C-alpha cells in the first residue's frame, strides 16, 4: 500500500525537507539556543585495552571525578555534563574509528583523553578537519600547531629541557636513549639530543624497540658498550615495566631517567622505580591544599590507596578548563569555546593553569626520585614553564 502512495519524487522531497530542517536546526541557530537546557556531551577517548591499559583507567577516573564535581555543583552554566567513553585499544585504527564515532554518532561537544602519541596523531586526523575540539592530556613530543587541538600535558621544553639541565649538572654529560619505536620516543630523542648538546653533552646512541619487546638484552649490551653517564628510557606502557625488570637484573650502575615514569608504575612496582628519576607536571606528593582536596575526592570515589598520575591530573584539569571556557563563551559552539580557552585559568592540583597562545597548557616541571614506598620525592621543582612550540601562535 505504502509503495503505491510513495513516489520517488515525494520521497526525495521529504528527505530534502528533513535535511533542510536539520540544517536549520544545527546551523541556523546558535548552538546555545539549540540545546540551551540539554546536557553538554563530552567524549572520553583513550587506551583502555592494549599497551596503555595500565594508564587508561586512572585517566578515565580523573575525567569522571571532574565531571561529577561539575555536575554536583550545578553543571556548566546550569547544564549537566553527559559523557561517552570509547577505547582506542592503543592503536591508530582504534583512535580514528572511535574519534569518528564520537563526532558523527554521539555528536560530542569536545573529546578529551588519549595517551600514546600515535593515538593523538590519529585522532587529530579526524577532529581537526572536522573542526572539533580535542584536548590531549598526556606529556608528549609537542610540535603540534592546530587551532582545534589543545594539550594539558608537558611538552619537551617543560619536561625534557629542565631535566637535561639538572642531569648534565649532576649525573654527567652523556646519555643513551632506549625507547619504544614510535613518534613520542623518536621525536623526544631529538629534543634530548639538542638539549644535551646545548649543555656541552652528547647523546651517545639511541635504540627504539617494537611494542611487546620481550628481551632487552641486546639493547642493554649496546648501552653497556657506549657507557653513558646516565640512561634515558622512553619505553611506553607495560613494556616500560619489562624494560625496568630487565635493567635491574643486568646490574647497571648508571642512573636511570625516564620521563614516562609516574605513580602508576611506582605503586605497582616500587622495587623497580626506587632510585629512578622522572619529571612530571604533577606528583601525588605535591603539598598544596588543592592537591589534598583532589586526592581526598579521588580516594572517596575510587579507593583511598589508588595511584594518581600527571596524565590523570591533566585530564581533570582539561575538563575544568573546558567548563570555564564554555561559561566564558556562553555557548558550546566550538569556535567560541576555543577562543575562550585561551583566556581562562583553573586552580588545579598542580597550581594555577591556563593555555598559552600555542594551545599548550602552562604546566609545572618537577624533577623527582622514586622512593621505596612508590612515591616521588622532589629533587628540584622548576616551577611553571611557558610551553614553546617554535613558530606557533594560534
Amino acid at each position, binding site marked *: 500500500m505504502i509503495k503505491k502512495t510513495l513516489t520517488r519524487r515525494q520521497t526525495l522531497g521529504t528527505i530534502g525537507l528533513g535535511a533542510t530542517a536539520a540544517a536549520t536546526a544545527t546551523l541556523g541557530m546558535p548552538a546555545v539556543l539549540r540545546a540551551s537546557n540539554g546536557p553538554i556531551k563530552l567524549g572520553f577517548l583513550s587506551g583502555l585495552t592494549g599497551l596503555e*591499559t595500565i594508564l587508561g*583507567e586512572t585517566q578515565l577516573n580523573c575525567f569522571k571525578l571532574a565531571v561529577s564535581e561539575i555536575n554536583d555543583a550545578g553543571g556548566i552554566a546550569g547544564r549537566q555534563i553527559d559523557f561517552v567513553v570509547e577505547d582506542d585499544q592503543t592503536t591508530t585504527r582504534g583512535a580514528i574509528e572511535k574519534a569518528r564515532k564520537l563526532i558523527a554518532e554521539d555528536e560530542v561537544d569536545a573529546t578529551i583523553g588519549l595517551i600514546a602519541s600515535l593515538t593523538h596523531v590519529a585522532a587529530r586526523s579526524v577532529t581537526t578537519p572536522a573542526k572539533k575540539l580535542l584536548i590531549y592530556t598526556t606529556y608528549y613530543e609537542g610540535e603540534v600547531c592546530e587551532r582545534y587541538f589543545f594539550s594539558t600535558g608537558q611538552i619537551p621544553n617543560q619536561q625534557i629541557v629542565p631535566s637535561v639541565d639538572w642531569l648534565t649538572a649532576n649525573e654527567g654529560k652523556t646519555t643513551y636513549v632506549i625507547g619504544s619505536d614510535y613518534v613520542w620516543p623518536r621525536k623526544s630523542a631529538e629534543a634530548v639530543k639538542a638539549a644535551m648538546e646545548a649543555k656541552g653533552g652528547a647523546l651517545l646512541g639511541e635504540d627504539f*624497540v617494537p611494542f611487546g619487546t620481550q628481551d632487552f*638484552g*641486546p639493547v642493554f649490551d649496546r648501552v653497556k658498550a657506549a657507557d653513558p653517564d646516565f640512561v634515558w628510557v622512553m619505553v611506553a606502557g607495560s613494556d616500560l615495566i619489562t624494560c625496568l625488570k630487565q635493567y635491574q637484573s643486568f646490574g647497571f650502575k648508571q642512573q636511570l631517567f625516564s620521563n614516562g615514569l609516574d605513580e602508576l608504575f611506582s605503586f*605497582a*612496582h616500587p622495587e623497580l622505580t626506587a632510585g629512578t628519576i622522572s619529571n612530571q607536571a604533577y606528583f601525588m606528593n605535591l603539598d598544596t591544599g588543592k592537591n589534598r582536596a583532589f586526592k581526598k575526592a579521588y580516594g572517596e570515589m575510587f579507593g583511598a590507596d589508588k595511584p594518581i598520575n600527571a596524565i590523570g591530573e591533566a585530564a581533570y584539569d582539561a575538563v575544568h578548563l573546558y567548563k570555564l571556557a564554555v561559561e566564558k563563551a556562553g555557548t558550546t559552539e566550538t569556535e567560541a569555546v576555543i577562543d575562550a580557552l585561551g583566556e581562562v585559568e583553573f586552580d588545579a592540583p598542580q597550581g594555577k593553569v591556563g593555555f598559552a597562545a600555542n594551545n599548550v597548557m602552562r604546566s609545572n616541571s618537577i624533577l623527582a626520585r622514586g622512593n621505596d614506598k612508590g612515591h616521588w620525592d622532589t629533587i628540584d621543582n622548576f616551577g611553571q614553564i611557558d610551553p614553546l612550540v617554535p613558530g606557533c601562535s594560534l
Partner: protein
Amino acid sequence: MESFVPFALNALTLISILLIVSIGLAIIFGLMNVINLAHGEFITIGAFTLVAIQAVGGSFWLALLAAPAVGYAIGFALEKTLVVRVYRNPLHAILVTWGLSLIIQQVIQLIFGPAPQRVVGPFPGFVTIAGANYPAYRLFLIGFALSVFVGVILLFKKSRFGLDLRASIQSTEMASVMGVNADRINAQAFAFGAALAALAGVLLAPLTAVTAYMGINYLARSFFVVLVGGAGSISGVAAGSGIIGGLETALSYQIPATVAQALVLILAIVILRFRPRGILPS
C-alpha cells in the same frame, strides 16, 4: 671473547623464551591441528597463577608446580566443553578460541584490575661469566626451558600417552580400532599443551610486565616458531626457536630492533616458501 659471551647468552635467552612459549602450541596446533588463538591467554593464566600464589605467601617454586596443574585443568575443561566441537572446522576453531582469548583477558582484568602485577622471581642478582655480568635468572630460564623441552620429547617418544597420541593423530579410526580412546587422548593432549603454556607464563613473569594482555605478545611469534620449525614435530620447535631467536638477536646487534624483527619474519616466509612443511617436519 668478552663480547661473544653476552651475545650468545642473549641469543640463548630469546631462543629459550620462544621455545617455552611455543612448545604447548606445537602440541595443540602442530599435532592436533587446532588453530588456538587463546594460546597467549594460557600463558597469562600461568603468570597470574604465580601472582595469586605469591599474594597468599606462596613461593615461585610452588607456582612452578601449581601453574601447569591450573593450566591443565582449564585446558581440559575447555576441550570438553568447546574445543571438542570444532575439531572438524578450522574456521570455527579460530572464532571460538579468539572469543575465548578476549573473555579470558577481560575476566583476568576484572579480578586483578588493569595495574601490572607484582611477582618475585628467584635469583635476583647476576653472575660474572668471562668478565661479563649476566642475570642469574636468565641462566636458570635457559636451563629450565631446555629441560622442559627434553622432557616433552621423552614423553612423546617413550610413554604410552605419547604413543597413543601419535597413533590417534596419524589415524584416529585405526587408533580407535586398536583400543585407543581418541576422545580422552585429545582432551589430555589439549590440556597438556595448555599446561605447558601456563608453565611458560610462570617462567616469563619475572622478566616481563604481568598484565591481562601479556599473552598477546607471544601469540603470533609462537605460531611462527611452530610453522617454521615444522608443524607436527616437537623437535621442530627447537629448530624454529633456534632460527628465529638466534637470527633476531644476531641482527638486532647490527641493525635497529624493529628492522631486525621484520627481516626475521621475511626470512621465515622465505624458508616456508622453500620448505612449506617447516625445517624439521614430522
